[in-house]
C-alpha cells in the first residue's frame, strides 16, 4: 500500500519484516509495541493473519484488491492503494471518530505482508471490477 502511515508504525512494520526475512520470530517487544499502538485490534489482526484470512486478488490488468474474511465469517473488501475497508468499524472508528488509525482488517493486511502469509488469487478483469464495486452493495 502506497499510503503514509505514521513513522513509528512504518518503522515497527519494517523491523518486523526484517526479523521475518532473517528467519527469526517476531519478538515479544514488537508484539507489545503493536498492542500499544493498535490496542485490541492488534490481537484480532494477528488472529486474522493466523487464520490466513487475507487474500490479495489480482487480475491480468495488474489491478489489485484485498479481501479479508472477518472473525464473523463476513468478507470485507479493502483497497490496495489507500486506506479503505468496507467494514463498519472503519467507517465509525477510523473515518468518523478518528480514534483508530486502521481497522483490524487493514492492519491484518499489513501484518500478512510482513509475515508473508498473504493468500493470492487471480481473477478476470471483469471479476475484479465486480469485487471493487461489491462494497457498494454490501453496505446497502
Amino acid at each position: 500500500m502506497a499510503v503514509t502511515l505514521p513513522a513509528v508504525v512504518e518503522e515497527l512494520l519494517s523491523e518486523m519484516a526484517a526479523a521475518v526475512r532473517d528467519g527469526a520470530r517476531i519478538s515479544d517487544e514488537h508484539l507489545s509495541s503493536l498492542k500499544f499502538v493498535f490496542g485490541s485490534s492488534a490481537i484480532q489482526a494477528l488472529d486474522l493473519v493466523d487464520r490466513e484470512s487475507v487474500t490479495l486478488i489480482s487480475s491480468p490488468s495488474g489491478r489489485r484488491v484485498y479481501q479479508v474474511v472477518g472473525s464473523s465469517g463476513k468478507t470485507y473488501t479493502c483497497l490496495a492503494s489507500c486506506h479503505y475497508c468496507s467494514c463498519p468499524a472503519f467507517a465509525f472508528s477510523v473515518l468518523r471518530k478518528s480514534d483508530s488509525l486502521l481497522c483490524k482488517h487493514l492492519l491484518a493486511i499489513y501484518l500478512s505482508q510482513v509475515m508473508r502469509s498473504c493468500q493470492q488469487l487471480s481473477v478476470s478483469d471483469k471479476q475484479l471490477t465486480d469485487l471493487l464495486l461489491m462494497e457498494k452493495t454490501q453496505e446497502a
Partner: protein
Amino acid sequence: MAEALRRVLDAGSAARPEGDGASGPPLLLLGAPRSAQTSLLFAAALEAAGEGRGPVLFLTRRPLQSLPLNTPAAREPWRLQKIRFQYPSSVPELLQLLASAHEAPGPAPSLLLLDGLEDYLAEDSGTQEAAYLAALLLDTVAYFSHHHGASGSCGLVVALETQKEADSDVPHLTLLQRYFPAQCWLQPDALGLGQQYCLRASLASGPLSPRMEWSVTFLPSGEMKITPWPTQASKPCSDRKGSSARSQSLTLACDNLSGPQCPLDRTLTSGTGAESKT
C-alpha cells in the same frame, strides 16, 4: 498537489520547473465559483495534454456547453483531442467507471480530473459512501500510475464547490482531506474590476507545507491571467480595500506553519516561488 495544476498556476512566474513525470499528491480544489474551478481544471487538462504522457480523463456530471477557456492552448486541436470527457450521470455510474478503469482499452491517462464532486456527494452523503468514492478515485489513479511504470504517474485533481474557506458546513471535508493531502482554495477577490473576475488561489501541497498564492483573473475574452499573489498585498496594510479579507487569509497561511513566531515574510518568500516537492 497534482503537478499539472501547479504548473498552470506557475506559468505566470519566472521560475517554471520542468515536468519530470511526477504528478504530486492528489489535490482537492475547493472554494467558489464552480465556473472558475472548471476553467482551472480545463487549463490543467490542456497542460497535461501537452506533455505527451498519455490522455487526460475529464469527468463531470454536467456536459460542458462550451470550452471553459479561450487561451492559445485551448485553440490547439491536438491538445483537445487528448482530453477524454466522460459524463457519469449518477454515483453508481461514476463508481462503475472508476472500478472498471482497468477494463478500458488504450493507454492509461496521465491525469484524472473530476469536476463538481458536490454533484455526486449530494446524492448520498453517508461517511462510508463518500470515503469509498474518494478511495476509489485514488485507487484508479494508482492503477493508472502502475501502468505508466517508471515513466511517471497519473495525477488526480478533484473540484468541490464550497462557499467559505474552512467552513464546517462543507460535507465530509475532514474525510476528504484524509484522502487528498494537497488542497487549493479559490476565493473571489474584492479587487476585481469591471468585467474582470478576480480570484485568489491558495495552494498547500500538504498539511505542513507552506502556501503558495496566485491571483487568477478571468478576462471578458475568455482568457485567464495568472500572476503570483503580490507580496505587498499580503502585508497587513490598511490603506486598500478588502484588507480584512486579506488579513484573514494571512492568518490561515500562518496556521500552516510550525510556530506562531514564524516571520511572515519568510512565509511569503517560500510560498511564492519555492518548490516544495515531496
